[in-house]
């Protein structure tokens, strides 16, 4: 049988695995986030012929990851910074993230921390770019309040 991992799939993987991983981690935390990432990428592997022709494959995979991990309904938990190996990060950050809604977390993390455009976040979440703008602004404001900082560098 021919090796199905094509250069095209590898390129897609390289470009989008981190994006999906970051989105799911922001939305659900490490537990369901890891599962959702794996489920979405597993689906991508199995259905590459179908996925490659989609206009918005990342948005599709995001929903696949959501759907396939619906069964896990535990609360979203963000572990202490030391537990994930980044003890130099502000210790209050995990708790501050919990003050944001799921969409706000995803929007802030992807747009503010990882440099996604608002259009890209909108395609992922299935909302408008203006909604993403609102999520980012309100999310950052909430984070600043929770962390008691006035502005970030």
């Amino acid at each position, binding site marked *: 049988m021919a090796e*199905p*991992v094509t250069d095209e*799939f*590898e390129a897609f993987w390289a470009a989008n*695995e981190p994006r999906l*991983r*970051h989105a*799911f*981690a922001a939305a659900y*935390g*490490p*537990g369901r*986030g*890891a599962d959702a*990432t*794996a489920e979405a*990428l*597993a689906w991508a*592997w*199995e*259905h*590459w*012929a179908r996925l490659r022709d*989609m206009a*918005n494959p990342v*948005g*599709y995979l*995001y*929903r*696949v990851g959501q*759907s396939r991990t*619906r*069964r896990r*309904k*535990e*609360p979203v*938990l*963000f*572990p*202490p*910074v030391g*537990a*994930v*190996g980044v003890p130099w*990060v502000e210790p209050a*950050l995990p708790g501050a993230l*919990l003050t944001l809604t799921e969409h706000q977390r995803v929007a*802030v*993390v992807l747009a*503010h*921390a990882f440099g996604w455009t608002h259009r890209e976040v909108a395609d*992922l*979440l*299935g909302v408008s770019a203006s909604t993403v703008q609102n999520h980012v602004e309100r999310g950052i404001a909430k*984070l*600043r309040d929770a*962390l008691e*900082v006035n502005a*970030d*560098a």
Partner: protein
Amino acid sequence: MPDLAAALREYVDALVEPLSTDEVRLGLPSRGGGGRRRWIVLAAAVVLALVAAGVVATRDGGGHKVKTIDRPSVGAPRQFVGVDERAVRLGLYDATTGKRVRYLSAVAPGGGVSSPSVWAAQSLIYVSRGLGTCASAIDMINASGVERQLIGTDPPNRPFANPAISPDGAHLAYLEGACGPGDVDTLYVHGVRTPLDLSMPATTATDAVLGRFSWSPDGRYLAFIYGSPTDTHPAQVRVLDIETDRRVEDATTLTTGPCRLSTTAVAFREDGMLLVSCADGLRPVTVRAYDPVSGTAQATLFTVPATPDFELSVADGAVLYRSGDHLALWQNGSARAIPAEPFLRDLQLLPRGAATAASTAAPTTLAPAPTTRLIGPRLDPAHLGAIPRTGIAIDFRPSGTVVLLDVNGNVLGHLDHAEVLLSPHERATDGRLHLRVAGDNFALAATALERDAGPLVVPPAREINAWPSVGAGHWEDAVVSPDGRTWLAQWSGECEAPSAWFVDARTHQPRFAGPSGTALESYALGWLADGRALVQFDPEICAPALPSGPGVYAVDVSGHATPLYTIDKDYLGWTATSWTSTG
């Protein structure tokens, strides 16, 4: 904080480790191969064919090998108990045919059963009985299916789970699970005949997960999984000596490789060896025998292909294991597939004697529990908040349960959904409090929480016993129609497939909120002022899709759906936001 963006980037990036295509290739078939389940079944069929043909032991190249190192005693048990996830009921099954002999637990409002633990000598099975989100009790079920609660709370607001009775019936281990930020799993070892009563919080990490308990034959050692949802902390296997250890951290940690939480399982064998399954990432699962005292591996029993989850159970030297939806009985160095239906979980292989007793013995009532403990409600003042101007308080309990209290502290009702927890003020301003109760029943309490003064009257919650004809599942929430005659209710079915239903407020009869026929994948969004419901119909994921395409529809109570906004059927990355006609 000097750089919020950088901190977010580093923290989120550390939460989930990167996946490589190699990991997916190990765990999945070639493109077009038909899915993991088919792959696992095919792999198992290949192994069985090899065994039947006399090919011995190890086969490499296909990613599957059965290695004969340890030979358990002959004489396999013939029955096991397990939980049918569709019905969420405990059943007794034939280990040869995979057929269900009979259900052992009844359908009960509020949730199903899980984590059975068999006390063979008394034909008793301890189970966890779900009572809602973050609420479960520990019940006993006898061979006749008579069930009685052993450990619970009133109101049901704590998650007691994972019971494990020692083989001699002397000790019961169970878990009080974490359910909210800051909670920790707590392991209890409860003496049934002796005064032993140990409480051992997992103090090293607030996100630690404990579970999958197994007792040694002599009842001295308790093996369990100690893990974390994060990939950066693989699951550990620990063995607690209940005669000397007093904390979870005192337990001996076995020397295993990195083990993924969902594929790590433990089960003591009759000779005192501890069998442990372990897989690193999406690689094949290896089952090894360990010395529980020294914590070192003694032998490798067998290996099965990579799987999302794995469990095992031991009796009479045989190993019953589940790899995904594939069941097999391993004994005498070879595995035999059990042609059971999928959706069986939490399997417990019965010793021969217990199997016979469970099949034929019929005690009609449960003997009084040797020791029964009722754990009372816990109120944490730190989590007590009040709704302004109402005289009513909401207790946000650490378990995630939400309880309504009057000014005297009397419990008016209890809910269990985080949405109420998140925004009680918003919910109260429209004059209705939207209650969500997990389980088979839901309840609505119409209130006037916005009143300025005077005593607040909260009518009793209106409980509905309604069961749509779509198999297993549970209600998630409901909203009453403007005329008060109908509820628009959200059902979460098998595969957590969502579907929206109308429930007649008078007759309690549910009917699908859409075209008649099969329930479609849909979400109840709310009501329009004209009495029609807003329903979001999704593309097909777990349940069929609306033939006219996914989107948001206005659905009248007869089921006629008028499209308001439709999307392409291939586009899953969307969601509708509910709104109200009065908003």
